[in-house]
């Protein structure tokens, strides 16, 4: 981050490049911060004036995303990925070491204003943790030695660009490849096949429908129906249009398959988007890439540039008159909720990432209120293969209800973490055997919002008819404390709740506090009942899926691992909500007292 960059010099050009367009606000804020280090009130004021929005609106958008700072955060911003898998690899001790070495407290800027160290939600490096982001560039496999090296580079104020390149190596770790990860489809082949299929785009839509392809983001909506609904919807307003959005906001803790797909098979994903554009009748595609994957941007832009040069993007693609399609990359800025498709669209429009009321759905009223197809990265890659090889080819892979393959992101207690692509229908037991996991007590399938599968159920299978998953597969050996797993997830949801609806905004924090209270040894049966009570409300009354599933980790573990909770409880029916003795600490300090009367046992 340049120190001396001046907002007067940087912002006018930046705003002009974005055509002073308020729907570009998230991108404007990100680029402004990259150039200036943080988003000062002055910077926000210039941006607000430049895109003709009230300052408060711009400040409100900046305040929504974790990666935007409206206060100085130092020239070096270190964020420790705090997924449970990072914790299992010792990230907490390493972070403490770093804080000690840099003479600072986590969450606070160092006194000289040079550096800050904090935690962040899972950065998608679970197979090579503990991971950090330094100025939003990922460093994986942190060790004590690497902590010391990083601290030294920070102390000597070495620009991150000059740090040893091998620090930033990220492994793909592909352990098992199938049709997607093994694909060597030449760029353009799927498009040529789609164009050749007569009488027109409808024929390729028919193939997608015949393939029985379903969304890979977890919800499993039938892709062909989504494309068809979007194709049949007519845009509205002055500039009617349709849009293809690729959801690469891979934020579900434990998921990192889109990172690898975009690294290894970017062409296939872009080809899938272009096929979707051809079928649906869209001229523009947008990729929403999570901010944690910022380092992929240059690679992806270069692939896009090459595809433009090859006539696979732009005007009259493959010499087809009127087949115009191009792709633009938007970067997220640290907000899990933007993985929800309508929140993602809000963010693409430069707003706070708050899920919309539905109906209407994005297929009719999406980006800029126009018909929009939002598909997962993996779905689009599969769609490209279907365009080439046909629906019948695809649906003979996998099971009857779950056609094709699924890429699993495997992390946690196993010998060979990484990326595994399986035909649907594989059992948990088989996966565990393949990745070298023994003495497993549980697998968290599809991340915190998914399900916790205990050993008795390892015969269950990956597929829409049994265990639907977005791909996360976190393994917990028999020495792991499942209460701590659930507590980590409770913190995650409280941090990532968008705050729109009452039950999720308040409920996720009450849950987090409840789990912390039990963790601190102050819990009672009462607190467990409170978890059930909050679960009951969140499932019924939350605005979106985040709230609906925010209690899942507690609910699942309380069903399957209740003793992990109970052994922490005081054997009392009720315990105070806060530590009574801690609550006397300030008064003790101010009075200098330390006698018996100056202390309170939290329970009698």
């Amino acid at each position, binding site marked *: 981050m340049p120190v001396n960059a001046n907002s007067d010099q940087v912002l006018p050009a930046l705003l002009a490049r974005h055509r002073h367009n308020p729907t570009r606000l998230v991108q404007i804020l990100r680029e402004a911060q990259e150039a200036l280090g943080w988003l000062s009130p002055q910077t926000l004021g210039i941006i607000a004036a430049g895109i003709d929005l009230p300052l408060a609106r711009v400040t409100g958008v900046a305040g*929504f995303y974790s990666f935007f700072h409206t206060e100085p955060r130092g020239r070096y911003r270190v964020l420790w990925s705090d997924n449970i898998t990072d914790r299992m690899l010792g990230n907490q001790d390493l972070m403490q070491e770093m804080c000690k070495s840099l003479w600072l407290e986590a969450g606070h800027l160092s006194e000289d204003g040079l550096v800050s160290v904090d935690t962040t939600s899972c950065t998608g490096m679970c197979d090579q943790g503990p991971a950090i982001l330094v100025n939003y560039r990922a460093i994986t496999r942190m060790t004590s030695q690497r902590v010391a090296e990083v601290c030294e580079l920070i102390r000597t104020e070495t620009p991150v660009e000059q740090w040893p390149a091998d620090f930033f190596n990220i492994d793909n770790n592909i352990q098992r490849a199938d049709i997607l990860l093994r694909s060597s489809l030449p760029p353009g082949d799927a498009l040529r096949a789609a164009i050749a299929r007569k009488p027109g785009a409808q024929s390729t839509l028919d193939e997608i429908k015949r393939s029985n392809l379903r969304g890979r983001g977890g919800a499993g909506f039938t892709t062909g129906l989504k494309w068809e609904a979007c194709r049949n919807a007519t845009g509205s307003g002055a500039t009617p249009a349709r849009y293809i959005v690729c959801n690469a906001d891979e934020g579900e803790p434990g998921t990192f398959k889109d990172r690898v797909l975009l690294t290894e098979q970017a062409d296939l994903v872009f080809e899938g988007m272009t096929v979707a554009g051809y079928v649906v009748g869209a001229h523009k595609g947008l990729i929403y890439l999570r901010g944690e994957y910022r380092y992929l941007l240059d690679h992806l832009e270069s692939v896009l540039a090459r595809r433009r040069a090859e006539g696979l993007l732009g005007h009259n693609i493959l010499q087809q008159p009127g087949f115009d399609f191009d792709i633009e990359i938007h970067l997220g800025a640290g907000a899990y909720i933007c993985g929800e498709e309508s929140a993602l669209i809000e963010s693409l429009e430069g707003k706070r990432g708050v899920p919309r009321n539905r109906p209407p759905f994005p297929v009719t009223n999406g980006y800029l209120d126009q018909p929009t197809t939002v598909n997962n990265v993996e779905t689009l890659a599969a769609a490209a293969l279907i365009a080439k090889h046909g629906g019948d080819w695809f649906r003979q892979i996998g099971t009857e209800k779950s056609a094709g393959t699924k890429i699993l992101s495997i992390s946690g207690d196993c010998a060979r973490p990484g990326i595994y692509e399986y035909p649907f229908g594989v059992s948990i037991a088989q996966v565990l055997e393949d990745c070298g996991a023994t003495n497993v007590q549980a697998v968290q399938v599809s991340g915190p919002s998914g399900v916790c599968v205990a050993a008795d159920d390892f015969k269950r299978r990956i597929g829409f008819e049994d265990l639907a998953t977005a791909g996360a597969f976190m393994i917990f050996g028999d020495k792991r404390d499942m209460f701590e797993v659930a507590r980590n997830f409770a913190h995650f949801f409280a941090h990532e709740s968008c705050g729109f609806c009452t039950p999720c905004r308040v409920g996720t924090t009450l849950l987090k506090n409840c789990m912390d209270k039990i963790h601190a040894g102050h819990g009672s049966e009462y607190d467990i009942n409170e978890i059930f009570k909050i679960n009951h409300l969140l499932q019924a009354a939350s605005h979106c899926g985040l709230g609906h599933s925010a209690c899942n980790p507690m609910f699942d573990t309380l069903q399957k691992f209740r003793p992990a909770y109970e052994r922490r409880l005081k054997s009392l029916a009720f315990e105070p909500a806060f530590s009574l003795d801690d609550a006397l600490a300030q008064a003790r300090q101010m009075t200098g007292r330390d006698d018996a009367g100056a202390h309170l046992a939290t329970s009698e």
Partner: protein
Amino acid sequence: MNPDMTEPVSSPLVSSTFTLDGDEIPYAPGQTVIQAALAAGKYIPHLCYHPEFKPHGSCKLCTVKVNGRPASSCTTAAQDGLNVESETPDIKDKRRTLVQMLLVEGNHFCPSCEKSGNCMLQGLAYDLGVMSPHFPQIFPTRPVDASHPDTLLDFNRCILCELCVRASSEVDHKGVFALSGRGITKHLIVNSESGRLGDTDFAATDKAAEVCPVGVILKKRVGFAVPIGERKYDPVPISVQTVSHTHKKETV
């Protein structure tokens, strides 16, 4: 969102109905469940819903069961034959829990609040029989803003319904209010570089000055004009009042 949803449609030629707790409720095309219910004299609790604004769906107090599935009645379009349940013990219990969540999220000290008695949150809490906040208090720190000559902002009581945000933007065309932060740190902010209301073009005559359902946006110098105990929701419960008010408007 159907743009017609902003205004309740009161067509005399109503032919379609849905059921609400067993009663037939007539509705006009474009109406939401809550609009039709209120027009028919059936109260459904709500805080962020306001008849003059587009449905928001954030407070969740108006949660009902529609054909067995939970839904916000302010964002659900009325449709023929829907089976809507509202006053069931389970739904009322959930609403109580929601009110309790709002009570512990902010700092709601009714005895020292000028809005007491005129406050929708309090009125709802009375109506639902909320005897305590139940959960541990969060006790957030939210400084008040007394910078404006005519209006006081006491953020301690904010329930984040966004009515002032919507009113200032859609009616006053000023954009004085916005939201920042997210999750439990979400908070109301004011459109000036200082962050103070006194440095905005806000006026006490703005629509945004009158829509706050709780005691955040308060007129200065009118404290205790009406004594405690004689205020809006003191004599008659909010449920009875809202419905008779809507009825009156309908008949006029």
